């Protein structure tokens, strides 16, 4: 999973160097709302990562599947 995240982030970052993106929309997304999204996504990506580690450790001590929830 971690490898997936790192791989995807690398592909996306490299892709962004070559492809411009456009945040045009008919509604004003708001500067603050645009600015916080990358940070928010990073926070929850890290949170998911640690949750998965916790679930993996838990799975060593008990049987059954675990549900990823934030």
């Amino acid at each position, binding site marked *: 999973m971690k490898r997936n995240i790192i791989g995807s982030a690398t592909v996306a970052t490299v892709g962004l160097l070559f492809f411009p993106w456009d*945040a045009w929309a008919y509604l004003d997304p708001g500067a603050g*709302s645009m600015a916080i999204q990358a940070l*928010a996504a990073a926070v929850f990506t890290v949170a998911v990562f640690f949750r998965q580690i916790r679930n993996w450790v838990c799975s060593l001590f008990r049987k059954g599947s675990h549900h990823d929830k934030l």
Partner: protein
Amino acid sequence: MTNFECPPECFSFRDPAGGAVRIGNGFFRRITAAGWEDWRKFNDSGLAKSLVADGLLLPFDKAEKQPSGDWLAPVETLDFISYSHEWAFGQFRDAALLTLELLLRALEYGMTLKDASSCNVQRHRGRTVFMDHGSFTVYHEGEVWAGYRQFVAHFLGPLLLMAWGDRRHQLQLRNFPDGLPLDYVAGALPRRSLFSLQALVHIYGHAWFQHRLQDTADLRAPEIRPLPRKRFQTLLLSLRDFLSGLKSPSESGEWSDYYDHTSYSEASFLDKQRIVRELCRELALRRVVDLGANTGVFSRIAAETAGVVIAADVDFPAVDRLYGQLQNMGGGERIFPLQQDLCCPSPGLGVLNRERLPFLERARADLALGLALVHHLAIGCNWPLELVGALFAELAPAAVVEFVPKSDTQVKRLLRTRPDIFPEYGRDGLLAAFGRYYRRVRVFPIAGSEREIFLFDERIA
């Protein structure tokens, strides 16, 4: 006064790519030249077909080009339009989850949602469906979500306030049709919300960023960090997991015995159900509005024969419970639970007061049900009985009204802390008041009770 004639509806005008229009009795999705490429991708990619097949999107037909240069696609007609400030908590949460689900699905097809308005979602045939077919636009890798602010203001913020703060914050959405401002949400949330990562980031952090970047003299577009698709999806999944676990106090059981007390016997209650059932069958109704529906016992009876039943009640927990029961036990394809204070029904809101139509206009029906309601309006809220009659006549050409005499414990309870200033309140007073609006009346006594049910019909034009 001017001679300007207000258009009957102006609910969909902001997006230059198109909007929803009503032509005659049919509804259409209008697509302009500016929105045609998005519309084509939405259809050609298979996204539209898959969403309709899964019951997530309101069904629609192929778009045809019009002489004006626009395209029109017929869409299935909704039986009833409601707004987020009227929804049960569960319906509100389902609408938020549907918006996230659609966005996640759209990303798989290389598309995204350009907005996240609660108006894009409606209840249709017992399901929560997305009705803004024009919201889908091509996704570019790394772009931030233009609808993020709207999603937080329309869905996440109100839901958090309703679940963790005061359920009545929902009514503030009447004052803020484009969602609750984040500083309002941040200020009104209880302190314990600071321990939630979701609230910390999406509400408090978001409000701080908004405040920091809004008062700048710099006219250049702000520098925005890209948001890779995988991270965007993780963000949406974390929101979906969080919201699916969010419950209102009424859902978590705090109000579980709230409506288990009635003032009459089981036999009388069954007889009342029999009378209402027989009247609904006899009248062969298409549309019923149940005023003071409570947890919907009689709305369900009306829905056995009527095509559409609008079940309105002032009490939030009652509306929440009805929606929860309909979702869990089924049978609610024709029932629309709605929070509505009849002393202050939803007014016309937004542009020209026509962007969101008033409740009394939307809820017009073939029959208005008012069971165990009139004493609350007449004694609890000081309505002259004539106004009660006017309310029913405004809504429907026929009315089924339960009369509860002053000797009933429920009326005594209303009068226990105040002088009886209601000499007009009584059987004769009710008949005279409704007689101003309806020509004919039939009376059905409820067995084992002093209560009676009146059927008024032949409304006076």
